[in-house]
């Protein structure tokens, strides 16, 4: 046992010891999962095509696209009025409005009006609390 269990860690490469060990464990677990779940893995193509077929694509992908655009615009808009949090405020209003419209089941006049009020009021309130009460940095 003695020599077999002994280990010397070189300080210069010590940053790789644990990641290598965890990587090895993940690999072993991955192989075990492949073996024990081989039927499910073989049917993965069908599973994903069923998931995609059953999915509400406009709402799901719409969420990702709207969020992506929201994140992309926040900083450039904020740079126009630096250190004011305006990037967050100006981008959040259309973001809340658009994603809300995306999620609404029935776009009735009253539902859209309520959404419009929230889309303006919520970002304004949050911006005021965080930028002017808590003095936190916003984009």
């Amino acid at each position, binding site marked *: 046992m003695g020599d077999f269990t002994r280990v010397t860690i070189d300080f210069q490469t010590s940053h*790789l010891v644990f990641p290598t*060990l965890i990587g090895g*464990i993940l690999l072993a677990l991955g192989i075990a999962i492949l073996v024990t779940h081989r039927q499910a893995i073989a049917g993965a193509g069908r599973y994903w095509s069923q998931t995609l077929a059953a999915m*509400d694509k406009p*709402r799901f992908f719409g969420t*990702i696209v709207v969020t992506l655009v929201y994140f992309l615009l926040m900083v450039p808009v904020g740079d126009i009025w630096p250190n004011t949090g305006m990037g967050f405020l100006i981008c959040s209003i259309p973001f809340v409005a658009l994603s809300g419209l995306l999620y609404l089941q029935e776009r009735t006049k009253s539902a859209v009006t309520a*959404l419009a009020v929230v889309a303006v009021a919520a970002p304004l309130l949050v911006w005021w609390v965080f930028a002017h009460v808590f003095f936190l940095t916003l984009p």
Partner: protein
Amino acid sequence: MELFGFVTPLFVLLIAGGTAIGIVFGVIPGLTATMAVAVCLPLTYSLGLENGLALLIGLYVGGISGGVVPAILIGIPGTPSSVATTFDGFQMARQGKGEQAMRIAIIGSLIGGLISLAALYLFTPWLADFAIRFSYVEKFLIILFALTVMGALSSDMLLGIFSGFLGIFVSLVGVYDVTDGGNGHFRLIPPGMEDILYGGFALLPVLIALFGLTTVLEEAEIGMPKGPSVKELESGGRSKFSWSIFRGQTLNLIRSSGIGTFVGILPGIGGSAASILAYTAAKTSSSHPETFGKGEPAGVIASETSNNALTGGALVPLLSLGIPGDSTTALLIGAFALQGIQVGPLFIGQHPNTWNSMIIAMLLANLVTFVMMYYAIRWFSLAVAIPKAILYPVILMMCVIGAYTINYGIMFDVWTLLFFGVLGWIGVKLGLEVAPFIIGFILGPSAEIYFVKSLESFGDFTIFFTKSWIAAFLWLLIAASIAVSVVIGRRRRAEKHAAG
């Protein structure tokens, strides 16, 4: 007087406000106590630790309790921890006893919360005193035990353990920090990203992503189903509540509180397990088990007492060992980290004020939740009808605030939010488990230090088995958790096979 100097009007107001918001989150199916804490975490940045924790504890207790409303009125658990409440609570509502069932649940929740608070107060200092003696070897084994327990109780052991180790792996991205005794070298970083990934992925954006954005994506995937109308909620009935229902329920209350507290202490196991275990125990020990599932108040008592008892239990390993008891307490680690405080065996001794403030906050949160829900349950139940089209965009916006402000304005943290939010959705589809991943992610850097430093000091792998009797005992627990998992897995497969 000094001892309770933190109990200011603001402290009490934050508990009350947190509890009210938490109840609303709990009431709305799809939103959880964890999400409430994640979304409101940025509010604590400027509050200071005691006040920040008061808000978060209010959200936690309120969020767990609020789940009872939809579970009883519409048969959908508002939070996973109320899953067993639907079995009898919904049946009671169909019999016109909805309000009665909610009052029973609220009283059970209070008793469960208070008993687990007592366990927290008495047990945590003892465990922390004991844990002070732990060397890096025992600390590493405790983390390993936490991961195997979580894996064992996941719906699939292999995938559960894989998720935990994946969390550790992701947490290792970045520099091997010199302040922790590392050599300052990078690892696992794609070329060109050394500057932004120097410190790895920040904890809070990852947590907010997995509990905020992933949930929104899951709801978007199924088309943001419409909640029930106010009319549907009214149909639950207004039958009168009588305290006599609790006659003969003392054992059920104590047993369910014990189960909830114990499950809370075990790392990474959610309230749904506590609620189902307590419900099963109440049913099997009942003299009339055939009434369970048909509107039996004892079933509601068992479920709701146990899930609120979880709140105190889950704080025990967090405050004594630094290991979160569930996903919500994992978020509390973020709140501590924001204030530069490390939780673990030395926490109570070094921060007695914070410890006392947490106990008081838990006590007040339980009492406030009881008062609010007992007297205003009809008003809170209306929150079920808030359109998700209005709620979810605001939640997403709050997620952005939380991610952006954590490191005083780094846009990369916002991209981390999107990256892990989408990855979380894919992971869940692949059968990976969020809770073990999170615990692995939180504990990964500590596990590395404990493991590498143990080997550097002793130079032999056998040290993990021979260091002390505690190490040997922890290996026994690890082996037992894996054995239990194998037995549970076999039983599940047999049941599946029998069901055809």
